[in-house]
């Protein structure tokens, strides 16, 4: 496990995803591929609009389509399809970066969580630790995912997917400003996902979602209520227990061992002296 310093929640950048504005055109999904030179492949026909069905090594952003029933106060209900553009949400204290055994996952000053492909050994610990099941394995064995377009944002540009959106779903900017916008959405009665999450992800994520309350259950399609991975949480608890436990245990046993050894030697010398005395007395 690697120790990392993460920028504070109100430092760096963030994105507010206003789902109510999304028309599901998938321009963001295409722009991501385009900017990052990710190879295209024909997808299979399926009963949903979502295509491909989930993230892939060459698909870092997918627009999921949640088929939900929207209920009105009058008792009337109608089916509704809610698009949810989804990519790595860039967790505040990214568990994937904490889990990477070689420190191949870097966290930039902007808060972008980026896998450095050259350093990746393909162990899959990042995917194991990610509560959103984001990192994917390429054919060459290394893992990959959305980079928050770190190459663009470090040069004053917006992420590619943000820039192309025709309905301005994404508000990209300094984290403090985006957090304030998200709070404003909440104050306006919207459901906001990403501000009060488990401590496992650092309590918040940098891609925050807002949606009208009556459509909020669509979020569940790809965003878990509990942003945590219990098995990996236990591993993180166990790791220092084993490390420090082993060092403390070894030190304690070494002290006892040395005391034993000294006592044993003294007793032997005493016994030998007595034996020679007895021998001398007899002669």
């Amino acid at each position, binding site marked *: 496990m690697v120790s990392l310093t993460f920028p504070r929640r109100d430092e760096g950048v963030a994105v507010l995803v206003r789902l109510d504005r999304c028309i599901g055109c998938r321009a963001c999904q295409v722009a991501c591929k385009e900017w990052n030179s990710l190879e295209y492949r024909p997808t299979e026909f399926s009963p949903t609009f979502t295509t491909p069905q989930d993230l892939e090594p060459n698909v870092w952003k997918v627009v999921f389509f949640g088929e939900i029933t929207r209920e009105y106060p009058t008792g009337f209900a109608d089916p509704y399809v809610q698009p949810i553009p989804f990519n790595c949400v860039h967790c505040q204290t990214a568990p994937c970066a904490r889990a990477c055994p*070689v420190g191949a996952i870097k966290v930039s000053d902007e808060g972008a969580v980026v896998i450095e492909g*050259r350093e990746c*050994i393909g162990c899959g610990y990042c995917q*194991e630790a990610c509560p959103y099941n984001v990192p994917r394995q390429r054919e060459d064995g290394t893992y990959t995912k959305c980079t928050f377009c770190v190459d663009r944002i470090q040069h004053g540009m917006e992420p590619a997917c943000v820039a192309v959106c025709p309905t301005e779903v994404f508000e990209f900017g300094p984290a403090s400003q985006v957090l304030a916008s998200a709070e404003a959405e909440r104050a306006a009665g919207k459901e906001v996902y990403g501000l009060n999450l488990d401590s496992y992800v650092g309590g918040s994520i940098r891609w925050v979602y807002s949606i009208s309350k009556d459509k909020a259950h669509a979020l569940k399609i790809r965003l878990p209520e509990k942003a945590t991975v219990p098995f*990996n949480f236990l591993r993180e608890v166990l790791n220092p227990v*084993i490390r420090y436990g082993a060092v403390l245990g070894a030190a304690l046993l070494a002290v006892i061992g040395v005391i034993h050894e000294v006592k044993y030697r003294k007793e032997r010398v005493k016994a030998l002296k007595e034996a020679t005395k007895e021998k001398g007395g007899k002669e």
Partner: protein
Amino acid sequence: MAERERIEVISSSYRFTHTLNLFLYTMLIITGLMLFSIDLTAWLAYSVGSPLATGIPTTEPIAQGVQWARAWHRFLGHVWGALIIIYPLYLVITRRLTTFIPLKKGLRKQIREAVAVSKYYLLGKPLPEDIANNMDRHNILVAHTAILLVVSSILLSVSGLAMVYRDAIGLDLEGFRLMLLLHDVGFGMGVLYVLLHIFAVLDPMNRPLLLAMFGDGRVSLRWARNHMPKFVEKFLKKKEEEERIQEQLHM
């Protein structure tokens, strides 16, 4: 038999297996630690990885060093796995497995002996006479810690193999998470066992056994009578029996 005579307490097959196990286990711990705590082992990964990474622009020394360790971990894991299956099988088939004999005693007796032996090891208090006189080849703590080792080895080998053959056996993400956790639990238990084991074998009382393990497998009869009287009793009986049979054959 004269008191100065030496008797075999550790067979040559046991000594060979122990040494091989010692080597494999140490290597598995070192290579495993490179994944478990890179902050402590990055220097080692770097020193091994820098020649491997030279001239390859798509990689980096620490990653190469860890990758090298990881490949060895997987290879040695298979060798170690084979060893921990073959040797215990041999012991069971040839009825030589004596480690767990102390577990045949009643639970109350086991606890009393465990407390007495712990008091000896931790506080240097001599064993009560009845327990000392009834000591077999292994004391009860050896049997108890051996259980720790067996459980740890099963966890390590089963979860290790499941992770290596993850795709072949169709292990899903949640399954992989569980296996990695179990591997860590097995590792923790293994580390605890190693600490207790090293502490016990370095105790002055056990010095002749330590020398026997890395020497000819023998200890003096006098020492054995003091530390494992029950075992000596059985050993001498068996020897007498063998001698009687030999005599009868030559009559």
